């Protein structure tokens, strides 16, 4: 799905939370299904250019991105886009447990970091808690 800035009304009607899910070529199917089953309005992206296009448009409201790096190459691509995630809370799913990969994962300053073969329910729990927290009145803004 792509999100185009068609007109001002579209943006103002958006829900007060932006949740993005990115998994290249439909990787992490189980996790995607789990996220789809949540009562949250989530935008799904399957390739880097669509994700890039979305990140180049304003959020206006708090944003959370669930990013699946299904390979180290994919993780490198995400690191290149790092500057576009400045105001986005990241949940990062890494392809493996190698310390060099984990170390690169931390360069994205993810709020939660897990692995592609871990229980998808963990991500759902964390995502729900993040959304809850960001919707609290104390969190005015992003």
């Amino acid at each position, binding site marked *: 799905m792509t999100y185009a*800035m068609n007109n*001002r*009304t579209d*943006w*103002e*009607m958006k829900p007060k939370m932006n949740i993005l899910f990115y998994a290249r070529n439909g990787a992490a199917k189980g996790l995607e299904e789990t996220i789809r089953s949540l009562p949250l309005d989530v935008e799904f992206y399957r390739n880097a250019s669509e994700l890039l296009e979305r*990140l*180049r*448009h*304003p*959020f*206006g*409201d*708090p944003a959370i991105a669930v990013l699946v790096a299904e390979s180290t190459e994919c993780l490198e691509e995400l690191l290149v886009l790092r*500057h*576009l995630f*400045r*105001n986005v*809370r990241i949940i990062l799913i890494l392809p493996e*447990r190698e*310390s060099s990969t*984990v*170390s690169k994962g*931390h*360069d994205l*300053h*993810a*709020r*939660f970091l897990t*692995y592609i*073969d*871990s*229980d998808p329910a*963990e991500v759902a*729990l*964390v995502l729900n*808690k*993040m959304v809850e*927290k960001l919707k609290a009145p*104390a*969190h*005015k*803004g*992003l």
Partner: protein
Amino acid sequence: MAHILIIDDDESTRYSLSRMVRRMGHTCATAPTLREGIGKATSEEVDVVFLDVRMPDGSGLDALPAIRHTGSSPEVIIITGYGDPDGAELALKSGAWDYMEKGFSVKKMSLPLIRALQFREERNTRGQARSVISLKREDIVGSSSRLMACLDQVASAAGSDTNVLVTGETGTGKELFARAIHENSPRAKRSFVVVDCAALPETLVESLLFGHEKGAFTGADKVREGLIRQADGGTLFLDEVGELPISLQKAFLRVLQEHRFRPLGSARELKSDFRLVAATNRDLDRMVQEGSFREDLLFRLKSFTIELPPLRERREDIKELARYHTDQFCDTYGLAPKGFSPEFIGTLLAYTWPGNVRELVNSLDRALIAARFDPTLFPAHLPLDVRVEVRRSSLQRKTTSEENLVDVAKGASYPGSYPLPKLRELRERLIEQTERQYPQDLMALCHGDRFKACELSGLSESRLYAILRKYNIPMSG
């Protein structure tokens, strides 16, 4: 031998302090005005400055940041004949070494000088402390005295391995400061590991922090390395540390003391050489009193505390922040750079920003959505709640002053003295003022579109009609 500068318009103070300094074996320079003092602080290698508050050409407190940021970054001891607690607090928060009243004996004045010189010598010996000027401070924007004092603390913290607690209201940038400590420390090449205590469900925190062996508990079908271990050689950032479950605090305290821990289900202990930076917007002292936070853990965390000011206490940074973030957004979104109308800046400066820098950044993002390709940002581009709040408070100020005039004429003023108006009358008057102004702003913002006005205001259509009719506001659209 150190070099001391005395900036005071009172000749006798300059004389007695100079004598004291020379007797202590140091050299000394004096200046009767701020202008001359700043000039000497800039051109000479000064270690400590005695700075008077009330100077003929301005306030010493206002000049404090400029003096602190001269080449030799001198320590500043404020001296005043009119000591007041607020002034002392402001001075210390702005990075002064000490705040003294002039009534003290020369001997008492010498003590803070000795301590400041000792601190300076030890810091220079360590040779690790960075000056604020050379600090990497990505996305930390501003040059107010309050911000510069915090950056000074970042520079000090980066040069040591002590635990740091960053406190401040939500949205003040605690994570940015934590990252700045890491980026400027010798650990910068290793990982900065974030533990978002508020986002992690209680059931997961322990296994995520400490890690676990395969089969340690139901569902642990693979070994997991804990975040504490992943921070080895780097920095462990415990965000919203007040949310750390009390059941885990004792175990974490031990990790903090010994830098050793045992993953769940493991028979052996692991080591991790991490540096801890924690952040909170909660009153941890109060949590200790209430029994929801361990006192011994708080004691460890508070080794070095950086208290970030809310944005309303560093308003002078708002324009720079707005410029910086707007430019960043325009660059990201491929938009031409935007200009600011004076009214746009005026509105930003007038608003109280309860959500601090985060709310400001978010509002700028939303302003860009509203402005799209307009080359200049106007208040109309800002979120409605910001504009309404600014308008409301300006009206309240105006109304209060007008009412005070009337009340004074009647021999009574409110607030602050008697007789008070009846609460019901006051409440009705305020409601009427708000009800009159709000729909005008609302309809102007929505260009008369009633559907959009209902959406934005949360009013039902019938209630909106009723209010518009009551105050004769046109129902176009």
